[in-house]
């Protein structure tokens, strides 16, 4: 039996505070995605470089990022590094943790996208007189980005949802942090969590729809 009377009035009064938190959530997610993309491109480059050390670094990064929980990665960014005297603020630790995770998944995503483009296309480009860089730039890269684009938007949604793990390292300004604090103060758990869930849903949905619209504009033939 669920014995609880909802006090929506009280909860909705905190809505502006929660929306401020949602902005921080979105900010962390966007920054983590930008940093993650840059790292992923670098990792893809490392893998293609042929250097043993560089591809080793890329392999370890991708393995750890994809096969351990994001919670662990964020926790390590704060408390793990803290053990060695490197102090990241909760915001920085959360950002670093998610960016690390994003980079791992996106690098794998790029690898898959590269594989989807037949090598014969590069050879065809070369036979038309392009050098290898031109063939990559004009033939492979545009197609690769197209293939990688939609899975990458998935990662963006995932990044938004992962920000909620920031509470474990003392983050109190993002949506999950604000919600936890409101909950602790008033014990109106279900109202605040329900509102937070709705806000997360709308952010994620808005990002997905915006990405689709953008894809429709960008990838027209």
């Amino acid at each position, binding site marked *: *039996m*669920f*014995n*609880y009377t909802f*006090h929506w009035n*009280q909860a909705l009064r905190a809505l502006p505070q929660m929306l401020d938190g949602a902005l921080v959530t979105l900010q962390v997610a966007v920054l983590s995605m930008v940093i993650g993309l840059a790292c992923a491109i670098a990792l893809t480059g490392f893998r293609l470089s042929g250097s043993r050390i560089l591809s080793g670094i890329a392999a370890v990064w991708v393995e750890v990022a994809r096969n351990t929980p994001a919670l662990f990665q964020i926790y390590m960014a*704060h*408390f793990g590094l*803290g*053990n060695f*005297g490197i*102090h990241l*603020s*909760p915001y920085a630790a959360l950002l670093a943790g998610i960016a690390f995770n994003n980079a791992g998944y996106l690098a794998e995503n790029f690898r898959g996208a590269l594989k989807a483009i037949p090598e014969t296309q590069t050879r065809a480009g070369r036979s038309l007189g392009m050098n290898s860089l031109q063939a990559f730039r004009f033939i492979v890269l545009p197609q690769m980005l197209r293939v990688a684009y939609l899975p990458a938007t998935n990662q963006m949604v995932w990044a938004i949802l992962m920000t909620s793990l920031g*509470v*474990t*390292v*003392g983050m*109190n300004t993002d949506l999950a*942090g604000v919600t*936890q*604090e409101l*909950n*602790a*103060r*008033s*014990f*109106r*758990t*279900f109202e605040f969590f329900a509102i937070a869930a709705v806000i997360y849903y709308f952010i994620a949905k808005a990002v997905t729809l915006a990405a689709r619209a953008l894809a429709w504009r960008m990838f027209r033939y």
Partner: protein
Amino acid sequence: MNKVSVLVFGLMAATALGGAAHADKLDDIIGSGTLRCAVVLDFPPMGSRDADNQPVGFDVDYCNDLAKALGVTAEIVETPFPERIPALMSGRVDVGVASTSDTLERAKTVGMTIPYFAFEMAVTANDKSGVKSFEDMKGKVVGATAGTYEAIALEEQVKAWGEGEFRPYQTQADVFLALSQGQIDATVSTSTVAQANVKSGNFTGLSVVGKAPFDTDYVALFTNREEYGLINYLNLFINQQVRTGRYAELYEKWVGGEAPDLTVGGVYR
């Protein structure tokens, strides 16, 4: 059957059914033979786990005493601070014996008993931070366990100071880990927790540097707001614990020293 006997029969049936439907939570607990207590096991000496991973602590003993008084078996349900209310509302526990501060804000949601324990707040600082008193925390990075009385008070204090930073961590262990690493300079916690953690030897470079000038943190047992029968019983139970000297005994066992007074002068209840 004449009209009168139909009426009488109907009334009897209604009374019998109505009676059964009115079994309250106290009846349910006695009937089921099990008392399920929400206890925070990350909060020594009130609740923690011993070397054999068994729950121990003041709150654990308190729940066992309560079960004994009710003539039922106690079941300790480990409940982190933020999950106390969901655990109660979803019916996973009957009573919270979880060092819960009896704020008016929370009493809008759950039913609080009279205080069964009282905490004083102490400042613990990293030795390298230079924090020697409560006032020294101004402008520093400070933290506390999210959702606790002291966390709420400390965050308001940091806002009032207008400088420094407040960080809420999810568990007491994380607060002391962050403190020992120097991620935060100082924390405010209950003096019992502060002493227990500094003495535990798990964290180095920490000292309890003084008291925090927050009001005494009275904590209450809690259950569903409308369960007056159970709340009434719990109030009497707390009274009896003090009256029989069991409260002082448990305090000596888990904390040591003189047990704090649970009454407030000049007002009823």
